[in-house]
């Protein structure tokens, strides 16, 4: 399957990764190579096979729905590129 530049640009947008216009042809080419490799999966007869959800058959553990942690505002914000007045700061989202 061949990926065109428009599709490559759309995927980059969906992934929230800026790709310069000039880099799109090479990116589309790489996608085409990788997806071409993946196409082999179409040879496999998967009729009646359930998609794997868990590699080990196990029932996930349940726990009580209670608060076990909290009051760590300083620790939570310690690594933020921009934190102000106890909040994460980001560019204006709402006009």
């Amino acid at each position: 399957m061949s990926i065109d530049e428009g599709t490559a640009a759309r995927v980059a947008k969906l992934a929230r990764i800026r790709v310069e216009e000039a880099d799109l042809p090479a990116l589309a080419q790489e996608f085409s190579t990788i997806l071409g490799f993946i196409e082999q999966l179409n040879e496999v007869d998967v009729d009646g096979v359930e998609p794997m959800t868990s590699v080990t058959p196990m029932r996930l553990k349940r726990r009580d729905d209670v608060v076990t942690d909290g009051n760590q505002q300083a620790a939570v914000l310690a690594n933020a590129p921009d934190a102000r007045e106890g909040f994460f700061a980001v560019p204006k989202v709402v006009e």
Partner: protein
Amino acid sequence: MTDLTKLTISAARDALRKGETTAAELTEACLTAIEGAGALNAFVHHTPEIARAQAAAADTRIKAGDAPDMCGIPLGIKDLFCTKGVPSQAASRILEGFKPEYESTVTTRLFEAGSVMLGKLNMDEFAMGSSNETSTYGDAVNPWKIDAPLTPGGSSGGSAAAVAADLCLAATGTDTGGSIRQPAAFTGITGLKPTYGRVSRWGIVAFASSLDQAGPMTKDVRDAAIMLGAMAGHDPLDSTSADIPVPDFEAMLTGDIRGKKIGIPREYRMDGMPDEIESLWTQGQEMLRDAGAEMVDISLPHTKYALPAYYVIAPAEASSNLARYDGVRFGHRAKLAAGDGITEMYEKTRAEGFGAEVQRRVMVGTYVLSAGFYDAYYNRARKVRALIKRDFDEVFAKGVDAILTPATPSAAFALGQKFDDPVQMYLNDVFTVTVNLAGLPGIAVPTGVDKQGLPLGLQLIGRPWEEGDLLNTAYSLERAAQFVAKPGKWW
């Protein structure tokens, strides 16, 4: 004692208990070795103060007679593990400056057992790579050398280089498609990927959550058994961690494998496989047969579809896991131009912060999960994964105890070697990736050298949760192979 850094965990443990050395001496010896090994670029964050404090505490415990096996053992920790207050970057620019406020479960367990952290180890960015060349820190270098510098493999390339060069006694690694076993084979050390769920993933930077598993990278099989025992066990913080007992793996190393059935999968005989790999595999079979095991021809018919299935599932999970790197809560944020909004912040931050291979995989993952392609790619890959696991289930149901395969399709290759396309690099994992897809334990054991003198490894694959039995078979192979070659020191 001389050459303290060359000790295995078991030899160091015994020497420490007898009072022949101290954790402080061991630690200083390793710190000195690390200082002199900058050319290997294995250690990328150094933590000598932590190491010395931990060593002092370990010596107190050893004197008091309260010393677990790992007490006082100097280790290197892969950069993928979050270590409190110490840079934990997953070798990515996007986590530049990130110092976790918490400690991963694996390092917590190792530290509670008295282990010493020497520093953080180089790796491929977000564990995506097979040559350690995608790291923001630059390439880690294999201590084995011919003419040009060689890759130590990846993604746990720094771990492999550090253990092979005797900079530490052992190291932690993680393995999503072969990232412990391939570098172990490339550097002549032992690398174990445990059963999925055996070791907690909590606090390990996530790549592909249904495949990721941490394990030990050590100088021999006994050390792998000892270190796995300290890393493993149920953790309520990881919902996929198995609540089953952890046996004494070291006690299971009897070397007796008489009557064991070892499967030889015909699909692992690849077209164009080098003769040396082929003959190593044959020798491995002879060694296990001489030890009293029975070789059985088996078929794992969906093997050829493992890599393509992996390159749907792993990028899909990565695209989801790496969505958290948005420049808001931690790590790098791009400088913004006037008028840039939040979307520009995300897009610029991720373009600057992620390297080329990570960007590629995140975008491939985004594509295979996008509307209209989800069934054709992602769901189909999960169905093929179910068939790959069924192949193994059927073989084990017929009484096969372990499966013997080559670990890698070649010896270590040159750094900077250009591949025609990304898929060429992906083929490195052809023998290892099935094990992650099926959630099984697998171990790479150094078994021989090629005609250039570079190490080669074989892989043993075990039944789920039977790492003890697998380690015992590996122990038998190790004893027969008597691999003792070491890289000559050039660094």
